[in-house]
């Protein structure tokens, strides 16, 4: 029982971390109809900037406060992501107005390559550290209730909390603001949106910048867990099933999808894995998502896919 709870809890926490990445996808898809394959690369890029500047700034300025270094580095990274967003709009999206989803998807793959290359070129391809003072040692709780107690991870809890805050903010943004509505319109029909005066260019910069900042938060948390290096761009693969399960257009869906995938993945690996040789969680997540899509082709909370004649 204790172990089951631990697994469940571990799954929920891992799921929250996936959600954090998935959020970036949803945001950009919802607002521009682009499935952003470069999200993982944006996570890497943002984390690299943050890690390197947190290391460099104290050297340059000659101080020694971890908090200050992190704060400044975070701000630099935020700025960097805004610039990246601006460049992406200028150099890529602008020329791709009104193109099909798959073309846009491929373009983001191209952008991803570019970001991978330039990020590592500018900031190095080694492993770098982000230390935001997350507690690493596990807590053991309820020792008298379960044998060996229940393991809890403060680091995970904090990450989950951050995700939750982001979700609330983004939900408000989409539901309550005029820009939010305009973004959904843009995703539906670029040209019609243009025709009524929605400035696609500006909107895209805003959205991609927010997407970049979400990536930065994700990068910070994953980076503090794993160290910052090329592979953290691959955590995006973990977020894909989350996004489609929750629905490409739903912010809360990203969270629920994350939790479901997280839990499903862990439970399957632990209780099913041993029968088939283990290592199943990666595809299990996708199959789980697929199975649910068979019942709801638009994901749990996604906008219904419309086809009418």
């Amino acid at each position, binding site marked *: 029982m204790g172990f089951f709870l631990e697994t469940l809890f571990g799954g929920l926490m891992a799921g929250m971390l996936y959600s954090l990445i998935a959020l970036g996808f949803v945001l950009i898809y919802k607002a521009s109809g682009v499935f952003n394959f470069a999200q993982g690369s944006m996570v890497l890029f943002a984390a690299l900037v943050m890690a390197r500047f947190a290391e460099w700034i104290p050297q340059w300025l000659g101080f020694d406060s971890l908090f200050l270094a992190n704060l400044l580095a975070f701000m630099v990274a935020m700025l960097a992501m805004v610039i990246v967003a601006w460049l992406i709009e200028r150099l890529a999206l602008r020329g791709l107005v009104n193109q099909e989803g798959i073309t846009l998807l491929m373009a983001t793959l*191209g952008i991803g390559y570019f970001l991978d290359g330039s990020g590592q070129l500018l900031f190095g391809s080694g492993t770098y550290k982000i230390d935001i003072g997350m507690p690493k040692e596990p807590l053991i709780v309820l020792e008298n209730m379960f044998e060996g107690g229940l393991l809890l991870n403060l680091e995970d809890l904090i990450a989950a909390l951050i995700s939750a805050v982001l979700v609330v903010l983004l939900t408000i943004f989409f539901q309550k603001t005029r820009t939010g509505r305009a973004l959904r319109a843009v995703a539906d029909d670029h040209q019609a949106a243009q025709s009524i005066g929605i400035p696609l260019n500006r909107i895209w910069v805003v959205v991609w910048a927010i997407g970049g900042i979400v990536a930065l938060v994700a990068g910070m948390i994953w980076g503090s867990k794993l160290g910052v290096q090329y592979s953290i761009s691959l955590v995006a693969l973990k977020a894909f099933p989350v996004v489609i399960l929750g629905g490409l257009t739903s912010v809360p869906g990203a969270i629920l999808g994350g939790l479901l995938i997280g839990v499903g993945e862990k439970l399957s690996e632990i209780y099913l894995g041993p029968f088939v040789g283990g290592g199943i969680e990666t595809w299990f997540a996708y199959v789980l998502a697929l199975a649910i899509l068979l019942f709801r082709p638009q994901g749990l909370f996604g906008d219904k896919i419309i086809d009418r004649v």
Partner: protein
Amino acid sequence: MFYRENGQFKSSYRADTALFPVAQDRWVLLALAGVAFFVVPIVASDYAFRAVIIPFLILSLAAIGLNILVGYCGQISLGTGAFMAVGAYAAYNLQVRIEGMPLLLAVLGGGLCAMVAGVLFGIPSLRIRGLYLAVATLAAQFFVDWFTNRVPWVTNDSSSGSVSVGSLEVAGFAIDTPAQRYLLCLSFVVVFALLAKNLVRGAIGREWMAMRDMDVAASVIGIRPVNAKLTAFAVSSFIVGVAGALWGFVHLGAWEPAAFGLDKSLQLLFMIIIGGLGSIAGSFFGAAFIVMLPLFLNYVPHWLGIAFSTATAAHLEHMIFGALIVFFLIVEPHGLARLWSTARQKLRLWPFPH
């Protein structure tokens, strides 16, 4: 000027539906085939065969397969690598498990197995569509990755999970030298490209495209979605599977599951999009572009006499690759094939623009 259609009237539907209605195209293609079969084997170096031409041919074949599914039938797949893997591993198993299995049969058998897998994984497409389907096809990718890695039977109990094939032989002839391997691949590619071209310009091809463009309307005029989609998955995976088998047998010789990972799937998708969705010729253009570009970028510094460190060069290569992809998509979202036909159209009208 040289490229005039004037005076070439088509007096029958046969002429109009011929593979290459413009005479110049026919000549150019014949010449090309002549060069490919007779000149290239003599002039190309071993390195060119192994590193450039053979991969190009095999990937073109895979791209044709994928193009049928994505470009013609509109079902985006990110799991092509998986079907290549099925083809390769199935062919491998056929060869190691059946004494005296001829290579060609093994390769085609690999294609058939991939076809079965393709249809199986294609079933969700009857319900799931668009980008949802695209992501869902990753299930195939990761499942097959896992399966080939984890089920020892697949690799004939190879402890490391990687397999290797012995010497190749077709009808008693040993296929040893790169030039022979090249001719083998070329033959496969030519045959399948022709068959594929026939399919896509025939009734079944129209069904696929109808499905892609507007499925409700398609069913109203009597096209069965199940049929159209699943045949596309079948034909596509068959070709992809054959390409996979060739990739394993002819190009790699020995491989591990990672050889058919997600990277390969994305690479193939790149090829067909850069080359041109819904275009057989585009598959070739795309494959050429994606195979050559990195090699080319790799050589440029040498030619220019600039010395980059390996890492810098690799990063620059990534950046340029990414940038060029975006650039080409902006210049022509419909791919190199369209660019080519536009250029031809201009040529045709030359010297009178428009």
